[in-house]
């Protein structure tokens, strides 16, 4: 067990090192991302400010609270982009025979899929996330107590796992359809709208879907409401969401991993 763990850690760190080296081969390429990502997210929060200024708080969420929520959602997105970017390419790998090489190596395929690319370019997504979140914390007067920091970390962990599970499940569909499903854009816009804006804006049916069917609400909305001492207006649970979010994250992730394994049995190694 320990030997196996050491083996995986040693390979993962080598993968990470090589990934960073590969990305540093073309440093100027980052410029377009460095421009686009901040424009996209800073303008997003700016537009929320415009709406709140001209109209009214959104379902009782004023601008500082919206900033806190937006930032929390964006950070977990950023972390996903750093560590799980390869889950976005599952459908392409299915169609182009990309799993062949992974299957030829005496290691877990899912591990290789995720570990083989640490996308440090994704840190660019984290920057606006952290800036907006810290600003949000500042203007809502977030209490940086040890308990709150611990809770925050648990929520981020759970949020990233829920996101990853969703992308894995969507990519895995390609094992059955054998088609490039291009569901990533779809999932990204859905996640953005459901985690960076208050879920309570949406009709009850959508709130129910995003709570029970695809539990996106747990990524940021419910925990944010709890941190801010607001009622989320939908779901009252015993105990803290800082416990519920990671629990649901782990369950979803395990489920998605199981679906992925089912899909691998259907793998046809096309494309060559």
């Amino acid at each position, binding site marked *: 067990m320990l030997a196996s763990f050491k*083996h995986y850690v*040693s*390979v993962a760190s*080598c*993968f990470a090192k*090589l990934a960073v*080296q*590969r990305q540093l*081969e073309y440093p100027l390429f980052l410029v377009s991302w460095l421009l686009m990502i901040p424009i996209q997210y800073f303008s997003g929060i700016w537009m929320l400010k415009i709406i709140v200024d001209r109209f009214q708080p959104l379902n009782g969420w004023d601008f500082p609270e919206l900033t806190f929520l937006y930032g929390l959602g964006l950070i977990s997105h950023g972390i996903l982009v750093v560590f799980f970017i390869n889950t976005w390419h599952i459908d392409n790998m299915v169609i182009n025979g990309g*799993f*062949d*090489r992974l*299957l*030829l*190596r*005496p*290691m877990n395929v899912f591990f290789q899929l995720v570990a083989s690319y640490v996308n440090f370019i994704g840190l660019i997504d984290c920057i606006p996330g952290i800036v907006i979140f810290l600003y949000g914390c500042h203007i809502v007067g977030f209490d940086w107590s040890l308990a709150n920091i611990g809770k925050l970390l648990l929520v981020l962990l759970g949020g990233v796992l829920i996101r990853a599970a969703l992308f894995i499940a969507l990519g895995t569909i390609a094992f059955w359809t*054998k088609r490039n499903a291009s569901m990533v854009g779809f999932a990204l816009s859905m996640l953005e709208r459901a985690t960076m804006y208050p879920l309570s804006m949406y009709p009850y049916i959508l709130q129910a879907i995003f709570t029970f069917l695809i539990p996106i609400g747990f990524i940021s909305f419910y925990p944010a409401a709890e941190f801010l001492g607001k009622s989320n207006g939908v779901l009252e649970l015993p105990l803290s969401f800082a416990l519920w979010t990671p629990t649901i994250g782990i369950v979803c992730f395990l489920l998605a991993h199981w679906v992925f394994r089912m899909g691998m*049995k259907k*793998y*046809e*190694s096309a494309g*060559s």
Partner: protein
Amino acid sequence: MEAVIEVIDLVKEYTIAKKGRGLRGSLKSLLFPQKTKVNGVDGISFSIAPGEIVGYIGPNGAGKSTTIKMLTGILHPTSGSIKVCGISPQADRKAVVGKLGVVFGQRTQLYWDLRLGESFELLRRIYQVDKATYEENMAVLGDVLKLNDFIDTPVRQLSLGQRMRGDLAAAMLHSPSVLFLDEPTIGLDADAKHAIRDFIKEMNRKMGLTVILTTHDLDDVEQLCSRLVVVNHGKVVEDGPIDSIIGKLTPHRLLVVELERPCDDLSHPAATIIKQEGLKVWYQFEKVRVTAAELISDLSQKLPIQDLSVKEPDIEDAIRAVYKGY
């Protein structure tokens, strides 16, 4: 001796989606996709002993790659059984692939943007080769493949031949007992092909490496393989030593005779004239009906022969016979 690879009644079924033509066809397949089932591999059996170099050949779409992918655990067969080193790759993939080296000629496993050595370091960790063994293996591989000239060069700057040598080394780094090569010499120049064949022979001789090779390059087959397995339409059509396959698939030989002057009666009861060009005559005959010596002595009695030559059919003729539909 115990077989390294044992394949019994292997079948792989595929589903193919049919696409309509034109605007109407596109709309139709958008709404009602049609599917049919096809057997890519249709009941293949063979077994391979340790230390053999086997050529696995057949036309495009014959089921070669599919078979290789099942043997290496990439694909799951629809039915039939596979044992590699006594283990089923489907039941225990990790145990089997640790003993295999696989090279796809058209797809490198080396990192494009990094120097060659970096890819080796990753593989060393993946296959858990300890530093001492790694150094030892690299010494042998580096020597035969002359890796030292380019081990610090980024892979994207390597020539195709160097890249292929790198890929071979990558596949052999963990001292596998079976090596699968899918079109290893495709697109290479004569020198590079030569280097790669030498390497395969060397590894086979020194370490008793079992090699399974798919290729369209018949020089590869002739120079490397002691045995051929020929597949077509998902079935094994021939399996045996190269010579016997040639003999069986192309029983005909040719005798080319050059006469001193034109003659009227050129015929022979056991041979057919397939071509005549001035004073040159081509006789086709079957080994089993008449020997070359008999034919020559018969003909020389009635014809003024100036020169003659006997042409043996080669592997190319044999393969063409298979591809034609056999």
